[in-house]
């Protein structure tokens, strides 16, 4: 997939994903960006290589005496896995625009998403993840704005379709914005195509419905 991607994952996110310490919602967005971005795919491979070397230089623990024979017995019970490559290839086939990790969580493609209105023409669909962070798809009609909001924690926003602009820059398909509590922004979808994003945040979540603008300064959604 060659796109003009100009906003990439941070080293901390790639390392966290590689080390396996990110919340599930962040893992989805990292996996989705890497699916779209060769640059970050290569950077992730580096971090995985670091992990491999950490295992290689780790002290050893003593294995149970029958460990190898039990493993060989397990292999004898279910030796082959030759169909995997084909199956995985087949699974890639129905690309349809969304990266596979996102399709896996939706359980299909964009048409299968059950959107809910959250105000101002914006719709969202929350993905099923562990509770320590949340991931949602956002559908922002072309030219529309997501109400101004701050962040209590880290918020990652990956553009899947269309583009948005905020105070900091323009974000097109494949771009990821990494925002922390210092950023107050008002993303606006570009004219032309509706903008679809995947957003994840580890802040305690009160984002189920967009509240009237008046309430926002007090609630910091």
């Amino acid at each position: 997939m060659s796109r003009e991607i100009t906003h990439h994952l941070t080293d901390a996110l790639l390392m966290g994903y590689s080390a396996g310490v990110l919340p599930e919602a962040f893992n989805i967005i990292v996996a989705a960006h890497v699916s779209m971005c060769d640059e970050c795919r290569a950077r992730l491979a580096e971090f995985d290589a670091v992990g491999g070397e950490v295992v290689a230089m780790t002290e050893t623990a003593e294995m149970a005496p029958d460990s190898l024979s039990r493993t060989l017995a397990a292999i004898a019970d279910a030796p082959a896995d030759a169909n995997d490559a084909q199956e995985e290839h087949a699974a890639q086939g129905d690309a349809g625009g969304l990266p596979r990790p996102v399709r896996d969580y939706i359980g299909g493609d964009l048409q299968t998403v059950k959107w809910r209105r959250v105000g101002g023409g914006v719709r969202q669909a929350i993905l099923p993840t562990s509770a320590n962070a949340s991931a949602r798809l956002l559908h922002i009609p072309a030219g529309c704005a997501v109400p101004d909001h701050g962040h209590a924690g880290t918020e990652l926003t990956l553009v899947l379709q269309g583009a948005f602009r905020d105070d900091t820059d323009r974000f097109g398909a494949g771009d990821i914005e990494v925002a922390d509590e210092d950023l107050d922004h008002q993303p606006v979808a570009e004219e032309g195509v509706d903008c679809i994003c995947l957003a994840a945040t580890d802040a305690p979540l009160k984002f189920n419905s967009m509240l009237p603008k008046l309430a926002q300064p007090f609630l910091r959604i």
Partner: protein
Amino acid sequence: MAKVRQSGLKKSAAADRMAWVAQVEAIRDRQDQAAFAELFGHFAPRVKAFLMKSGASPELAEECTQEVMTTLWRKAHMFDPAKASVSTWIFTVARNRKIDILRKERRPEPEDLPWGPEAEPEQGEAMVLQQETRKLGQAIADLPDKQKDLILKAYYGELSHSEIAEQTGLPLGTIKSRIRLALDRLRRQMK
């Protein structure tokens, strides 16, 4: 409590790397149990220690290590030595198992690259990547203790994402640069 002992980083390492690759290929091509036993002897005690450091009990770590090594056998045909070293590959399998077992979560993985017609693995590319990965390991081992400990802690899951983000002093850029070059070459070929 299982005993844990220091192994130190030995270096007949360059030859080891390609030997491990050959062992995985022997498993793939002729279900070679002796090759598997060699890999098991080297990696299983490290994987088990890694899982225990990540918070698994010795019993769970033992069971999980056996599963990781079983996966290595079953997925031997998926291993590509031009993309990863054997230790990298085993690490990713062990990490995913760890998330599955300790956190009981799904692990979303990136979509595979759309490969063209099956490319014949390039021996030279594999060699370069294996050597660079070995140098990476050496570079990590040579780091000052404080920096090395931070990297170990991160991969043992002792640092949260924000704690990793706060560690501005991690010298990862320099130690990873060479393996990056090897991977860049690979990416250009795939386009």
